Structures are given as C-alpha cells and as structure tokens.
C-alpha cells in the first residue's frame, strides 16, 4: 500500500511541483496543503491530469483551527477528500482561507458538481465564503439563523432558544437559559503519560 502512496506523492510532486507544498504521507493517507488563490488551478489539474485523475469529490468540509494548540496553518480551511476511481487512490486537499476575519475561497463547483452543497454547508457552519458559488444559502441551520455554529468560539448551547409564547400566540426566540457545563474536561496529556517509568 505504501509503495502505491509513495508513487502518488511522486506524481504530485512532478505534476503540481511548486504550487503545492510537500505532500505529507501519514497513517496511510496523503495530504497536500494549498492557499485559496491556487485552489481552482490545482483542483482542475488533480481532476484532469491522466496520472492523477481524481474524478470524485467525496467530501468537502470546513474546519476552524483556532483552538488547536500549535497549529502551523491559518485559522479556516476547507478540506476536500478526493477519490480516483481510475487509479484507486485517495487524497486530502487542505485549502487555507487567507483571511481569518473574512474567509473567502474560490468555489470548486465548476470542477466537481458535488461541491455545491458541501460548500453551502461549510458556509453555514463556518462562515467560509465561496467566491463564484451559484447559490450560497444556509443549508442546515434554521431559517434566519445568526452566526456560524461550528466555529470554536460559538458555544455548544448557542445564544438563543425557542419557545411558544401563549400571549403572542406564536413561537418566539429568547436568550438561552441553560447553564453551560462540562462533565468531562478536555485534557491533553504529555507524550509519555501513563507509561511506567524504569525505576531500577
């Protein structure tokens, strides 16, 4: 398996060369990282080049790295998982949005039609704008929702809750009344935690 992936890395270096960083091979998967500006050209090459042939966009998802300790890249990225049926290999393509305040990426809908709804989802949940998208509406959250709920600075309980108001005889929004709580705290242990040391 890894011989095949080495070959994929080699091909990526040959074909895309300078426009991508060094392909990373980890846990049996290949990742390349690019900036938003190069995304369209790289995506087209990945799809059309006979040595690569990534015909299918399996997944596109937003991610917010702001709470990831020591993350070297930018805050927002769109991560694509591509599959080539011809060569039977997969690739992860991470596209960083240059600006954390107003993340904008070019749309990939012209390259893979499947990107349409995935980009709507990434916009809805992370607020990543996709330049040139034909129909960039919210998709999963409620009509009239405010904010981008999957960002790390958005609380799990949200900001508003909904209830029926018998006086106005309609459903109204009001600020949440839930106390935030965390049963199990998030813990990152040091590398050697739990290993029995050699005490002689």
């Amino acid at each position, binding site marked *: 398996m890894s011989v095949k992936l080495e070959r994929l890395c080699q091909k990526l270096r040959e074909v895309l060369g300078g426009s991508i960083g060094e392909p990373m091979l980890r846990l049996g998967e290949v990742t390349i990282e690019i900036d938003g500006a190069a995304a369209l050209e790289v995506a087209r090459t990945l799809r059309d080049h006979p040595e690569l042939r990534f*015909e*299918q966009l399996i997944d596109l998802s937003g991610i917010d790295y702001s709470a990831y300790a020591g993350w070297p890249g930018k805050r927002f990225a769109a*991560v694509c998982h591509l599959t080539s049926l011809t060569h039977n290999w997969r690739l992860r393509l991470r596209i960083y949005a240059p600006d954390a305040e107003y993340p904008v990426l070019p749309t990939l809908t012209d390259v893979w039609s499947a990107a349409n709804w995935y980009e709507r989802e990434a916009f809805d949940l992370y607020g990543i704008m996709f330049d040139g998208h034909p129909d960039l509406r919210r998709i*999963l959250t409620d009509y009239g929702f405010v904010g981008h709920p999957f960002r790390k600075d958005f609380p799990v309980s949200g900001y508003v809750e909904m209830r029926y108001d018998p006086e106005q005889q309609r459903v109204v929004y009001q600020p949440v009344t839930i106390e935030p709580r965390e049963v199990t705290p998030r813990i990152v242990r040091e590398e050697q935690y739990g290993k029995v040391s050699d005490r002689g």
Partner: protein
Amino acid sequence: MAEIKNYSINFGPQHPAAHGVLRLVLELDGEVVVRADPHIGLLHRATEKLIETRTWLQSVPYMDRLDYVSMMCNEHAYCLAVERLIGVEVPLRAQYIRVFMDEVTRILNHLLNIGTHALDIGAMTMVLYTFREREDLLDVYEAVSGARLHAAYYRPGGVYRDLPESMPRYTENKFKDPATVKRLNAAREGSLLDFVEDFCNRFDGYLDEYHTLLTDNRIWKQRTVDVAVVSPERALQLGFTGPMLRGSGVEWDLRKKQPYEVYDRMQFDIPVGSNGDCYDRYLVRMEEMRQSNGIVRQCIDWLRKNPGPVITASHKVAPPAREAMKANMEELIHHFKLFSEGMHVPAGEVYAAIEHPKGEFGVWAVSDGANKPYRLKLRSPGFPHLAATHEMAKGHMLADVTAIIGTIDLVLGDTDR
C-alpha cells in the same frame, strides 16, 4: 389569453413519502417539475459539534442516530477511524463479527428501502413482506446488543461482547397459545448463529417472492424505468456512491476496491446497472441483498469454528473484564480512567470510509491529542444524493418525485446529521 404562471408547492416536511422531515420546494409547470429545491436541516442536531464535547468512547451511540436504518455501519466507520488513529489491532473474530453484522445491516437497510419505495409509488404489499423479514433481523440486533435499533455494539478495538449462545424466546400469554409459541420458537432453540443461518436459508426464497411481486410488474416498471437517468460521468461528478453509482454502471465498491476488515476473504459479486434509472438501482439493491446473504453465510461458517477474543486486550482503549476489574487494582484504575477521562488519541487526522448500504460513509477525525475529538466530519452518502434531486427531477412529472426520493434511499438523520 390568461397568463399562465408556474406553480410552487411544498413537498413535505409533513408528507409520508418525504421519508422523515424533508421539505422539497417544487416549481411546477403544469405537472412537470421545473425546479426542485430540497430544504434540509429540519433534523439537524449538530452531531459533529456535540461530538467535540464528548470523549471518544461516548460518541459511539451518536453514530446510531445518524442513519437510523443502518446503525452498525455508521459505528463501523467511526470505530475504524479511532482505531487507525490509535493504531490498535482488532482481533480477527471481532472483524468477522463486524462484517457479519454489517451485512445483516445491509439487508435490513435494503429491505426498508425497497419496501417503502414500493409503498411510496403505490405497491402497498411490499412493505408488509419486507417488514416481516426486518423483524427477524432486528431480533438479531437485539440479541447481540440489547437494543433493536440503537445498538452501540461496535467499540473502538472490537465489539462490545461475543455473539450470544441463545436467542430470546416467545412465551405463552393470553394472545399466544402454546402451538403458536412453539412455531415461533422453532428457529430460536439454538444459538444466534443458528437463528441467522435459518434466516439465510429462508431469505433466498423471500427474495424470489419480491422479484415475483415487483421485477416484472408492469406498474412498477412504468413508475421506475427511465425515471431519473444518471449517466456514469454525471454520477461521478455529483459524488454518487454505493448503489446510486453502481446503478449507473460504474463498478466501484469499497468492499472490493479498498477492502477493510476481512472483506478480502469473502466471496461475493458486485451487481452493476446499465441504464442508471430507478429500476436499475432497484435491481442492484435486490442483488446486493442476495450477495450479502452469501457473505453472512460465510461469516457464520467461520464464526462457528473459530472462538476467540472479540475486543482488544489493550486497556488504554477497551475496558478490562468485569471480574478482573473487581479483583485487581491495576485493572480497576484502567476501568476508572477509561470511563471518566476516556482514552487519549494521538494527534493526527484520518479519513475512514466504509461501504455503507447507501454508499460511502466516511468519518474524517481530527485529534489534537486530547480525550475528545478536535473535529469530526461525517461524510454521509445521502447528502450528495439529495443534492442531485434537482438534476434528477427536472423535466419529470410531479408523481416521479416520489420515485426519485425513494430511489436515493433517503434518511434524513444522516443527511442532516
């Protein structure tokens, strides 16, 4: 002359053929669909966000609630992702049990799909037959995990426990006389494997019955043949996977092409359609059930002969045995740490995909080394399929929309997450 305008209607969210809470805004020109705009998210529960606040083990039951007709397959992808990140070995018997249960799940899923698809487009009888068989398989679910639907049976490192040696039996009551109970319990005298084997033997005959009911049925063919034709090129472009892709004639099945667990040891064929219409996708699903039945049989043979552990012995991932935990200090600490703080998963990211009954179900897990995921993206097969509704429904009649929703095997739990 009167001005003729297009007409917009809401299909769902309260519509029996909308398979849950799909709101489909249709723009009609007479009876012809001009635009289909699915509004999803009415069942959005922010599963991915909730998972970021739970430990890795606590998230397993969330997977059942995604695609609530193929529960164990969802768990499977999640467990694969965690196992790859940690690098833990799954015992061989557990791998066989997973394949076994995955194929049972595939039959369950396709039975529901074909039954309700037929129900939606006018064949009332099918659903009665398929739900009869589903009942037996849900009993299998209940016997292995204790729950009919939300199993939480697969765990990172293996499965929760070994297959039971006995099946639960019916008892006499004022509604069931001794003769009925005896008949109902006939297949339940032995172990779970005996029960499933009995089912497998009956199931080929059941499939023939379904074929008799539908395959050459004139009405069924009128409603499905040449409806929603998708070419192989468009299917790839639109991100189709599973029976939707194979119905269009692309031979692509992760069980064969990128085998996981013990699928490389199994003998089975991949059915492929030729026209890419609703009828071909129906035929693909029917044949997949027959193939799954064969895989289940192969698993039964192997599982009978090869006892062994079903979950990893690494106590950083899986809890120790109950007796050991009660008797031994170290095991007690392991147990306590695992269920309070949870396991620590090394920093990194992984994408684990399986051939879910509906297509490719993938889990992209990102860990920063904590006891909880940093980000978990669930790639559900239904999402891109539903996104293609407009392309498939355009130019068809209003009544065909029902057939299209049926053929994409829509379950909103996994589309909305």
